[in-house]
């Protein structure tokens, strides 16, 4: 056994070095981000969502400025310029919009340029003209307005009908909730197609009846989401506190609960929009859309389809705009959902 002194002789003073506190770090403090700023950051990082937003802005701009830019309007007919292919004056040698158009008769391609044949090279019809000589560019963008109007209506219905329905049903609970939920259940068991078709058969086809049809069908999803969220929140301490302080029910619903579920509401709104646009386009396609000479993307597609093998460009442009619009709203809705609720990311 060594004594303490012998131990000490084995140890040199140099063996001991003051510790360098290199492992000691100070936590980096991040500045607190507000919920909205956080969501915005996530949204901007999502390439699909930003693409969607940019496309929507572009389409909205074109819907309002497009007809004026073309110099035509959606209703002026010109029987001397029927079914003209896409053409921009001065682009005769360009690969697109040159006015050159290939028609297939029994599988044989026949190339021709109607513009030079008719000697109207200085006339511009970017998307061509329809069977009545109306400028398709002006008609397409005027038709886009209908889709945008429908999108706006969908948002209004969602917030006013769906949201209020869900808030009231969720907050009050009890018999009222039971009653309201049976209405929702029955309405959601009837297929939308059936409701919409019947309604338009009874009413005259037009914007009013489309609006009413959307009013009956489009708020159900929103009311479900709002109700579920309200049920979750109404038991929370901050709601209890407000109630103890004597805040009115109205104020609790709209000032305490609503701001906390706003993210979900926006997401749900965005999800309804493509549905609403699709419903309108679908109705127009089966001949229940807005009556001529007004146009919507759906009715343009429906008209163009009738001569699709002869003049495919009549379908091509409205379909492309509709598809882009639907895609953009879908991408933006997905982006918003991820931004507001990162936990849902994988859905």
């Amino acid at each position, binding site marked *: 056994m060594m004594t303490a002194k012998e131990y000490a002789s084995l140890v040199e003073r140099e063996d001991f070095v003051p510790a360098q506190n290199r492992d000691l770090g100070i936590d980096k403090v991040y500045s607190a981000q507000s919920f909205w700023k956080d969501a915005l950051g996530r949204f901007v990082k999502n390439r*699909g969502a930003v693409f969607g937003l940019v496309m929507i802005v572009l389409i909205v701009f074109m819907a309002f400025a497009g007809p004026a830019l073309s110099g035509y309007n959606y209703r002026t007919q010109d029987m001397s310029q029927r079914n003209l292919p896409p053409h921009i004056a001065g682009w005769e040698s360009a690969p697109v919009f040159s006015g050159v158009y290939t028609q*297939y008769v029994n*599988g044989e391609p026949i190339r021709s340029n109607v513009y030079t044949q008719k000697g109207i090279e200085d006339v511009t019809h970017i998307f061509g003209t329809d069977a009545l000589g109306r400028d398709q560019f002006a008609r397409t963008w005027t038709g886009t307005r209908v889709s945008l109007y429908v999108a706006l209506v969908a948002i209004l219905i969602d917030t006013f009908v769906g949201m209020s329905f869900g808030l009231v049903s969720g907050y009050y609970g009890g018999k009222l909730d*039971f009653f309201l*939920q*049976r209405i929702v*259940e*029955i309405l959601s*068991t*009837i*297929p*939308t*197609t*059936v409701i919409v*078709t*019947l309604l338009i*058969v*009874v009413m005259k086809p037009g914007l009013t009846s489309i609006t009413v049809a959307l009013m009956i069908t489009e708020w159900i999803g929103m009311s479900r989401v709002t109700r*579920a969220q309200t*049920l979750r929140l109404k038991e929370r301490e901050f709601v209890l506190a407000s109630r103890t302080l004597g805040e009115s029910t109205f104020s609790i619903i709209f000032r305490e609960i609503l701001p906390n579920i706003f993210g979900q509401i926006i997401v749900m709104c965005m999800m309804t929009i*493509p549905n609403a646009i*699709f419903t309108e*386009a*679908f109705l127009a*396609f*089966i*001949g*229940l859309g807005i009556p001529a000479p007004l146009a919507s993307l759906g009715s343009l*597609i429906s008209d163009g*389809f009738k001569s*699709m*093998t002869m003049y*495919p460009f009549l*379908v091509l442009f409205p*379909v492309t705009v*509709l*598809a882009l619009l*639907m*895609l953009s*709203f*879908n*991408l933006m809705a*997905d982006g918003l959902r991820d931004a507001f609720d990162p936990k849902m990311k*994988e*859905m």
Partner: protein
Amino acid sequence: MFKYVLKRVLISVVTVLIILAVLFTMLHSMPGSPFNDEKITAVQRANLEAKYGLDKPLPVQFVNYLKAMLSGDFGVSYVIQKNMPIASLLRARIMVSIRIGVQAVALGTLIGLLMGIVAAMKRNSFLDTFATVVSVIGVAFPSYVFAMAMSYFIGFRLGWLPLLYSTADAARSTVMPTISLSMFSMATVARFARTEMVEVMGSDYMLLADSKGISSFRLLGVHGLRNALIPIVTVLAPLTVELMTGSLVVEQIFAIPGIGSLLVSAIQFNDYNVVLAVVFVYSIMFISVMLIVDILYGVIDPRIRLAKEDAST
């Protein structure tokens, strides 16, 4: 479980009754009467009304109407095929629609599942991105975009498949309609399958099964897929809706003699009886699918059933 099923059935029955009531009201609010021939005297009219039960009070008429509709007697068509019983008009067409619908769901589910599983296995790879893009497009584009594109390029330009439906060549005629209708199902199922597979693959029981050394095929098929499949049942209901609206348009594009195109022409020719009959058939089909899905869901996963009972009471 019994209470849950009973409640679902009850709601479905009430819905059918409401739909019938709405249709009945619509029939009655239509202008004109079936006997508006000027040559008919008041006595003859009274006799005719007595013969068809139109002199009875409204509730009795409604009950008669219920009996007739539920036994499949939808009256006769006035415009499309004069005096043709609608029931036989429907019978000839419904099989075509169902065939294409079933084919579309089968194809869509199969390819969607494959895409979802592959995307979940090879996360963040090229295949995953591809599957995501396809499913975003499939959900976003209406089915008639695909239908028109295919009918123009494959049907018209290349001439590979018949442009319009022909009964003589039914099998080949249904290829393009089936594919365009299946895009939505495919996209939805692919999305769901991917999400579920990702979640299941990360779970503890999969880790355990893997560490026990079972083959990867068994791991994926028996342990993974089975658990991932449960929530996919939920998308069946939205799929039926999409199929119905989709079929209206797609049948129109390919000139398929199904009930969708029947409804469209009935609307265009103002043949009210046919419209109401098709709407009724659609509603019955939809409500039955919803009922089956709801019950099936409760059977497969007891947690859902309990949660649903909680939420609705």
